[in-house]
């Protein structure tokens, strides 16, 4: 059963249709909207499986279907769908995780008033995300990229009556827009220099050798190679969307949205879009790798940004007390890892980590969601605690998710994918700094995860909400179990012994693994690191669990100033306010001044001038012109009056003159004229 690229559009189209149904159905059509959304996503999942089968049948082939969108002056502007192992894997992941999250949110959002609208936005988001994945043209990708941004705004600001949610939605939208600006510029520059935006177009595509060759050859300002410049611009889009170092501030605030939203968007799919984008345009990013005399390589920038983000995310996560914010910062750091993997040259490891991370991070968020749902929306871990007894299934699945995230060896998918990244980082010849940052990151990840587990699940419940928390209905716990299973199993897809995923993605057909012994050193190191992190975490939080909600944090006792600084998220928000915020208000004030005094003054000046000329005109007109004309016409009327006296109106008089005139005339002719 094969699916030709031509029918790829079905995958995004089905959730879009469900979104339409959700939108058009009246508010009371809750079941219908939800059912449509889930059914559409399941159908889309089935189509993606078929697509996966076709893609894996010939992993190297890039099944492309291009069609004419509209004719733009001389040429025809074309878009298209692309089917290759990367697209297939991403589609399957998004649809599978999406379905589970949809089912979970059936329970989670049951009490909400506009339940129907929620599902409409969710399916809209799924459609946009799938559209982004299957796109063969950078423009189509950009369009769905923007739609994804819109969907995230709608979903973050879902409880818009909460001012903080509305502000968070705006913040998310604006910061991602800043990144998107870079992507747009890169897109335009690409179109300008290569004349087309299609990735693969039978040789003429952007990512094909001919175009890349021409890009690499051109050099712009500062000796920077054009392909590097475009690559970096596109990377800006990725930074914005995936919450990398400078533009990560919106992700923690995005936690204002309902938890399934955070799970779907801010764990599994949307944030991964940035990584997917760089993976998709990887040939373009690599184009400048061979040139030596280039001031900077695109991928090195990616690598360093990824390393910084990973380290920073992990540090801040340690000091967070809100369960969803801890997970948010852990997402930031894991994305940093993916960018690091991309930067150091192994995009396959990045995609593998993306896939595994999608599953266990979704699991962790849904776990957090069921905890919050059970504890009546209590999110602060200091006032939770002791839930392991009350919520058995959630506790077990949450524990499995945490192990996968931390990278407990051998059984958990997180370990293999992180291992691959460390291996790649270690092998990078440019510099070893990112490797050391990654290593420190692994330790910190292990530490804050154990802190999280200890604070929420062990010890005694420290608030009335935590007191009577109880396990949720199966509709919420079932997805947790499924995700937990995936979190464990997926790891074995791509172990060094049998690197099936890598071969598929790289397009090679037969799989030849190498024995475990080669990477043994690194594997040993990571095991040690994980153990170190876990030990430290247990030491501080495990043995003596927190006594009361207000008790001071053990770490804060040791390093109060550092922890306060970390808790304040490295004061980035204040930094941005201070710089960008003030700049904005200053320029607004200046514009207002300009408007009022400069232009306003000019306009009033003109008005005065107009009045003056009018005055002058009336004066001259009154005095000179009218006077002149009046007496001229007076002279004409005089003789007119004289002649009019001849018109007496007496018909006989006229006839008499007629007759006399005739007589005189004839006499003249007879007497004088003709002889």
């Amino acid at each position, binding site marked *: 059963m094969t699916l030709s690229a031509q029918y790829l559009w079905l995958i995004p189209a089905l959730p879009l249709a469900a979104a339409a149904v959700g939108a058009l159905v009246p508010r009371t059509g809750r079941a219908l909207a939800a059912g449509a959304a889930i059914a559409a996503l399941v159908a889309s999942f089935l189509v993606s499986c078929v697509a996966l089968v076709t893609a894996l049948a010939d992993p190297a082939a890039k099944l492309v279907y291009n069609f004419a969108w509209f004719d733009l002056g001389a040429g025809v502007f074309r878009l298209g769908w692309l089917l290759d192992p990367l697209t297939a894997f991403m589609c399957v992941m998004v649809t599978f995780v999406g379905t589970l999250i949809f089912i979970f949110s059936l329970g989670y959002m049951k009490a909400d008033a506009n339940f129907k609208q929620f599902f409409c936005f969710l399916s809209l988001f799924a459609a946009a995300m799938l559209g982004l994945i299957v796109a063969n043209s950078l423009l189509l990708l950009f369009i769905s990229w923007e739609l994804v941004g819109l969907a995230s705004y709608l979903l973050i600001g879902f409880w818009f009556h909460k001012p903080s949610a509305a502000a968070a939605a705006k913040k998310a939208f604006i910061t991602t827009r800043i990144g998107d600006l870079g992507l747009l510029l890169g897109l335009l520059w690409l179109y300008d220099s290569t004349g087309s935006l299609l990735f693969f177009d039978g040789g003429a595509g952007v990512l094909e050798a001919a175009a890349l060759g021409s890009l690499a050859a051109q050099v712009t300002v500062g000796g920077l190679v054009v392909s590097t410049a475009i690559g970096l611009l596109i990377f800006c889009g990725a930074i914005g969307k995936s919450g990398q170092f400078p533009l990560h501030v919106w992700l923690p605030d995005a936690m204002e949205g309902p938890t399934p939203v955070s799970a779907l968007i801010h764990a599994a799919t949307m944030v991964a879009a940035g990584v997917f984008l760089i993976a998709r345009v990887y040939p373009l990013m690599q184009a400048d790798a061979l040139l030596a005399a280039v001031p900077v390589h695109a991928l090195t920038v990616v690598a360093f940004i990824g390393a910084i983000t990973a380290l920073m995310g992990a540090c801040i996560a340690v000091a967070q007390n809100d369960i969803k914010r801890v997970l948010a910062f852990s997402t930031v750091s894991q994305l940093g890892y993916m960018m690091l993997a991309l930067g150091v040259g192994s995009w396959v490891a990045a995609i593998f980590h993306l896939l595994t991370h999608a599953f266990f991070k979704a699991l962790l968020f849904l776990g957090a969601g069921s905890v919050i749902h059970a504890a009546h929306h209590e999110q602060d871990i200091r006032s939770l605690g002791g839930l392991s007894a009350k919520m058995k299934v959630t506790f077990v699945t949450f524990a499995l998710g945490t192990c996968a995230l931390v990278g407990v060896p051998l059984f958990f998918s997180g370990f293999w994918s992180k291992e691959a990244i460390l291996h790649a980082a270690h092998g990078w010849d440019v510099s070893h700094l990112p490797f050391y940052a990654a290593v420190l990151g692994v330790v910190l990840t292990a530490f804050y995860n154990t802190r999280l587990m200890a604070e929420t699940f062990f010890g005694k419940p420290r608030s009335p909400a935590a007191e009577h928390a109880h396990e949720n209905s199966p509709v919420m716990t079932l997805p947790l179990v499924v995700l937990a299973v995936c979190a464990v199993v997926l790891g074995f897809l791509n172990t060094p012994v049998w690197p099936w995923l890598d071969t598929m993605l790289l397009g090679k057909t037969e799989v030849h693994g190498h024995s475990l012994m080669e990477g043994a050193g690194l594997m040993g190191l990571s095991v040690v690191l994980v153990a170190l992190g876990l030990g430290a975490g247990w030491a501080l939080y495990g043995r003596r669990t927190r006594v009361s909600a207000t008790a001071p944090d053990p770490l804060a006792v040791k390093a109060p100033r550092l922890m306060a600084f970390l808790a304040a998220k490295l004061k980035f928000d204040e930094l941005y306010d201070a710089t960008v915020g003030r700049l904005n208000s200053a320029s607004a004030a200046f514009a207002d001044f300009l408007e009022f005094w400069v232009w306003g003054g000019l306009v009033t000046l003109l008005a005065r001038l107009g009045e003056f000329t009018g005055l002058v005109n009336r004066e001259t007109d009154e005095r000179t012109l009218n006077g002149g004309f009046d007496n001229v016409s007076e002279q004409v009327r005089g003789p007119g009056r004289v002649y009019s006296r001849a018109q007496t109106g007496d018909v*006989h008089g006229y*006839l*008499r003159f007629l*007759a*006399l005139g*005739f*007589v005189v005339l*004839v*006499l003249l002719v*007879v007497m004088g004229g003709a002889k």
Partner: protein
Amino acid sequence: MTFALIIISALILGCAAVAMALRNLIHSALLLIGSWAGVAAFYLWAGAEFVAFAQILIYIGAISMVVLFAVLLTRQGDAPEPVEFPSLSRFVTGLIAGGGVAGVLIGAILGMPFDVRTAQSAPALSVKELGAQLMGPHAVSLLVIGLLLTVALLGAVLLASDRRPDQPEDTP
């Protein structure tokens, strides 16, 4: 032959002169119709039968009716207006002007060197030839005169009809 002519001209001129002098409009109109009959007789004497009959049909048949109706509609029939002074002075000046013109015309006629052919009989013109002439070279003017007549009559009807806006048209 000239004897009949003299009688006819006497009839015409007499009727016309008296018609112009009379006070009573109806009598002067009828006398004028008599003079028109005289003119028709003159045409018969001159041999133009068709024109004579046309003259009778149109002048005595139709125009006399128009004149008489006009006289009735303007209520001139019964009260002959009194002779006041300005009409007499106007009469005298009119006479002088008319006399002047008559003098000039008669002078011209008498002084005219005609090569007179008394014996020549009236050119025989059958109605068929006249019809052919009318339809042939003069067809256009026939159409124009037809158009003129319709337009004139429509105009006359509109002018003379007494459309008082307040009185609704008497529906049958």
